[in-house]
């Protein structure tokens, strides 16, 4: 399975290595650097590489490469999924997953990695289980520990490891019992030049934050579960009950977790909240171009569109832009050729518009392609698919928890072709 792990930063320094079997020299990473060099963009590095004696499987997230060296056949997804789980755990423990934070907490990172894999096979990957064995850092505890010589490491086997609910730790106690669910939906869409939808689908997740004492057994039901086409669950969800009754019945892990993710059946028409009128043209002569973008509300279900943002990857030939926006600010990164127009709230009375000229590299031929627009937006208190949680019931505990559901619609990969 997984032999070694190397963490490599953006500039190609190995800043952490961990071996679970015999030590593999870090020179094995040279093959990876070669591939990275060739790919230019870190996103383009192939996740699976072959070297004379090892196989390298890597992921790239948060500007860090997680590179694992492997010696024998193993499902690549197994490794990729695990590496992402490592990243998630760091995020969970330290609030962010960056080189600095990993370097600062190298001991905890090492302890975590030690627990997560044994001989290259995942041992404990549940956040609840890990947190019982290795406590996440916090300032108070580190002060207390230095004074008393206490440690961050638990000395008992996490109860979760052995129980039938491995994801939940035992003996959870809260004074305020609360359960919050965020229904977050993302619209993935491709619109063509004329505004017609080429492809659109809605993907949703239900993020939960559950802080409940004891061993609560929750049931979450929907008004319209038929909307959900394809679902995947956190292991705590009882699949059989979903199949028969379309309710989510589960004993939750403690803290934050993703309860389920779903896709809304593709038969339903996807409401596209905004329309985009754009006109980008490059003139044959004079090495300049024009840009004119207007955004207006389309199907917003009476809610306001917020956090509106347009990102355009300009052709290489575009040197500078000279634009004026009626609303919001725009920036143009000369190095990456990315134009970002941060609009903010969409006012239906006064539609935001961005127009102006693009100056091109003199002498360069007119770009063949027109850049596509990536739209970002947020609509609070709305699940665009119309999904509604009808109720949350709790069994197994006596107290009355505080319950809450929040809806949010976001643009996922929302692209307008020009």
């Amino acid at each position: 399975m997984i032999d070694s792990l190397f963490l490599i930063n953006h500039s190609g320094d190995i800043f952490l290595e961990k071996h679970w079997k015999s030590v593999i020299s870090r020179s094995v990473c040279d093959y990876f650097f070669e591939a990275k060099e060739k790919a230019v963009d870190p996103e383009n590095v192939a996740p699976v590489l072959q070297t004379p004696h090892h196989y390298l499987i890597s992921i790239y997230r948060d500007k860090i490469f997680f590179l694992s060296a492997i010696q024998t056949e193993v499902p690549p997804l197994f490794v990729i999924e695990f590496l992402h789980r490592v990243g998630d755990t760091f995020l969970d423990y330290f609030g962010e997953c960056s080189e600095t934070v990993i370097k600062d907490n190298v001991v905890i990172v090492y302890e975590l990695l030690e627990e997560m894999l044994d001989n290259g096979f995942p041992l404990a990957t549940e956040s609840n289980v890990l947190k019982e064995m290795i406590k996440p850092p916090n300032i108070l505890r580190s002060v207390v520990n230095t004074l008393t010589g206490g440690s961050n490491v638990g000395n008992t086997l996490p109860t979760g490891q052995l129980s039938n609910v491995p994801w939940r730790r035992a003996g959870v106690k809260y004074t305020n019992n609360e359960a919050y669910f965020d229904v977050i939906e993302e619209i993935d869409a491709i619109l063509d030049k004329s505004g017609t939808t080429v492809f659109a689908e809605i993907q949703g997740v239900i993020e939960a934050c559950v802080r409940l004492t004891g061993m609560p057994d929750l049931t979450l039901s929907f008004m319209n579960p038929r909307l959900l086409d394809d679902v995947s669950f956190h292991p705590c969800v009882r699949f059989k009950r979903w199949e028969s009754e379309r309710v989510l019945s589960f004993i939750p892990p403690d803290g934050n977790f993703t309860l389920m993710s779903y896709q809304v059946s593709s038969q339903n028409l996807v409401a596209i909240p905004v329309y985009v009128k754009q006109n980008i043209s490059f003139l044959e002569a004079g090495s300049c171009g024009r840009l004119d973008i207007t955004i207006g509300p389309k199907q917003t279900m009476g809610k306001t569109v917020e956090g509106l943002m347009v990102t355009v990857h300009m052709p290489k030939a575009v040197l500078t832009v000279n634009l004026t926006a009626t609303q919001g600010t725009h920036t143009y990164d000369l190095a990456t050729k990315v134009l970002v127009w941060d609009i903010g709230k969409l006012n239906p009375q006064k539609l935001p518009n961005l127009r102006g000229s693009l100056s091109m590299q003199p002498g360069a031929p007119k770009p063949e392609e027109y850049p596509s627009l990536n739209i970002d937006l947020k609509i609070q208190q709305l699940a665009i698919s119309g999904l509604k949680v009808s109720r949350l019931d709790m069994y197994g505990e006596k107290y009355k928890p505080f319950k809450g559901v929040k809806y949010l619609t976001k643009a996922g990969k929302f692209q307008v072709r020009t």
Partner: protein
Amino acid sequence: MTLSESSDDSVKKSNPREDWPARRGGLRQAEVDTCGVMSSGVGYNDQTGAETAVEAGQETTPTTSSSGAAFGLFSSDFKKNEDLKEMLESNKESLKLEAMKRVVGLISKGKNASELFPAVVKNVASKNIELKKLVYVYLVRYAEEQQDLALLSISTFQRALKDPNQFIRASALRVLSSIRVPIIVPIMMLAIKEAATDLSPYVRKTSAHAIQKLYSLDPDQKEQLIEVIEKLLKDKSTLVAGSVVVAFEEVCPDRIDLIHKNYRKLCNLLVDVEEWGQVVIISMLTRYARTQFTSPWKEDAVFDENNEKTFYDSDSEEKKVPTEAKPYMMDPDHRLLLRNTKPLLQSRNTAVVMSVAQLYWHLAPKHEVSVVTKSLVRLLRSHREVQYIVLQNIATMSIQRKGMFEPYMKSFYVRSTDPTHIKTLKLEILTNLANEANISTILREFQTYVKSQDKTFAAATIQAIGRCATNISEVTDTCLNGLVLLLSNRDETVVAESVVVIKKLLQTQPTQHSEIIKHMAKLFDNITVPMARASILWLMGEYCDRVPKIAPDVLRKMAKTFTTEEDIVKLQTVNLAAKLYLTNSKQTKLLTQYILNLGKYDQNYDIRDRTRFIRQLIVPSEKSGALNKYARRILLAPKPAPVLESAFKDRDRFQLGTLSHSLNVKASGYQELSDWPAVAPDPSVRNVEVIEPVRSRLSETPMFSASCCLVSPAVTNAPKPSVISSSLLSDLEGLSLSNVSSVTSPSFGPVKTYELLHHMTGKGLAAKYHFPRQPCLYQPSMVSVQVILTNNSDHVLEEIHIGERSPAGLNVHCFNTIERLEPGASVTVSMGVDFSDSTQAANFQLCTKEDQFGVSIQPAVGELLMPFTMTEFNDLKTHPRTFSDNRGHLFKKKNCIPGYFFYQIFVNPEQMKKDV
């Protein structure tokens, strides 16, 4: 570390290489020694143990008589490590911990901290858990380099292996087995064997991991290890299952016979195994199934043709086939595997979903494979790396089975923000999916892609268009025209790629395309990409009879620039010259000779060779002989068109989802997926002598799917239909009818009777009920209730039956209407009520001919029953609480097999936790 020179030192030094038994003796002494040191906190200059300690230290630093001096030597080089050493040797725990943290920091950066080994190893028995853990980290990292010093720590682990705390036992075994020192192999072997029979499943799991470690350290132990694996495979804990299968795959993947008896158990446990274990078990079972079952594809072999029509007509097809051939009967075990893996498609773990998908791909009947499509498409929303792997697999699948992914075609549309390798994979799939019906949509998409800023991708798109054009004859002309338009594109790579693809297309379509060739000849001057130039030259030569005027002119231009061209262009120039010489020697004779002369003195030997060959072939001379006559037939032979096919064509030789598949190279350790056997091996090998208890060790790891029945009853109060795990149902199904009929045998335990209807309210009709604690005859999810109806009135009651129920969905198996109940008489009837595992009362109406009485049955905690098999009665003894706790009721009755009992248990979750 302050090693003093002992008087025995020189003696020991004289024979540093003692043989094994002697060393073992020494080791044992070292055990005593380290313990002494650790507990007293005194250094190694303790009189009793000094000699062995020094002996151990001696081998690593044999050059000096005192290791202390050796470290002095280091101190000048590694100042920093010197103060770490001091800290490690201090008496303060906090200092030691601080030092260890810094040491771990060094290790993590890949810096060498091995010279601290003696100082670190002393702390192995520290009371401070964190310090101990960090020492473990250090030990595992450096033990291989400092073998003898590492031995000092072994005794600590050996002691910890006997610790009452399972966590300590497990971590001791983990570290012990990770210390890669060949000398301790026998100790490890012993420890593994012991741990494999440990009561704690967690320790057993650790022992499964240790097996692989020991195997990689010393493969000679294989036979003994296989025995342990065999034992662990029989383990019924979900915790162990995944790990032992990993060990099996690593140590003895060919010993398929070990799986037989455990096959059904593994299938049934699968849902509850942790996600990583699921992946390895599924992939192992895929391999297993391919050796044990016959092919489910035989009868629908028609579908192999990749023919959609037959695919969709599969239903009608299937009805016909059995009449012709012997009908295919799927082995129930084969079906069991497919059925039990299907829910895992909903897993959040992408690796699990992929492994189920490959299992269906390799094992399921063709018409069932499509259940995995939706889940695979879902994975495309995951991380970039996951997309990459999943798309690769879909690409392979979509070649053989277009129909599977066609409805999801739009999910493979490319976004401009996708990384290039994702884009090309999506393109590959779109091309695979193209057919007459959707080609126009796909081509419209491709038009967008061709304009992409990403030139590699644009080039790939052009190739894809070429493939579509050859595969679907209807659009060949459209594609060709589109490609010709691209020839005027500003981008070099796009033009070049178009030329190459057009060349291939023209070859497959040898019709009148001289216009296109002429057009390309015009463009020739502007094209600089060698491959494209070479392609145009080849086209000129091949179809020189179609462009008789242009071809010689192109050759003339080439003669001018010949020396500056790339090799591949030169070769094609020579070819063109030769072909023109044969068809139009009048105009081109001199040019050809000129080019051949240039080629003769070229730097590249390939070109020199080719020139020499061509000259002999076309220019008649005495030496050339008979071959000359056939020059025209050789050079201008009609050539078969190249086949444009997917790069994923041959990937199906690998099992999907594997590393080998991803790399398209056989990875080391790849297990070949065997072909279906023509005749299935004896299926009875999988029979287990006793009814395999799926959940015998309740106390250990009750399966969660089962516990949804176990847990919910006490805690739910909303009415809902019953949920009974499939494994439970299958347990019940496994019982023969005779077992069920014996249900009525008297049950043990107290029978408490409850009042259902008082005779005052019931106008003389009284009803009492009790729970006989038997499996309900009617439906496994129902609880059986016996109702005693008594007529306390002075007139006959007629038509006693059950009326309306609430909640409406309440599932009740009513007793037959009692036509007549004489005054004073009583009758006992039994009914089944499905409480949906809740404690909510079942309300219904008890009706007589004249009256209706609302009654309700309140299930007392402990009366909701679930059948439960147990192999060993001893299990109960070890967990007396299960027995005595009045919340947990046991119901037992004799099963068909003597000595085995059939229980029904209801336990509430808290209690279950306690047991755990």
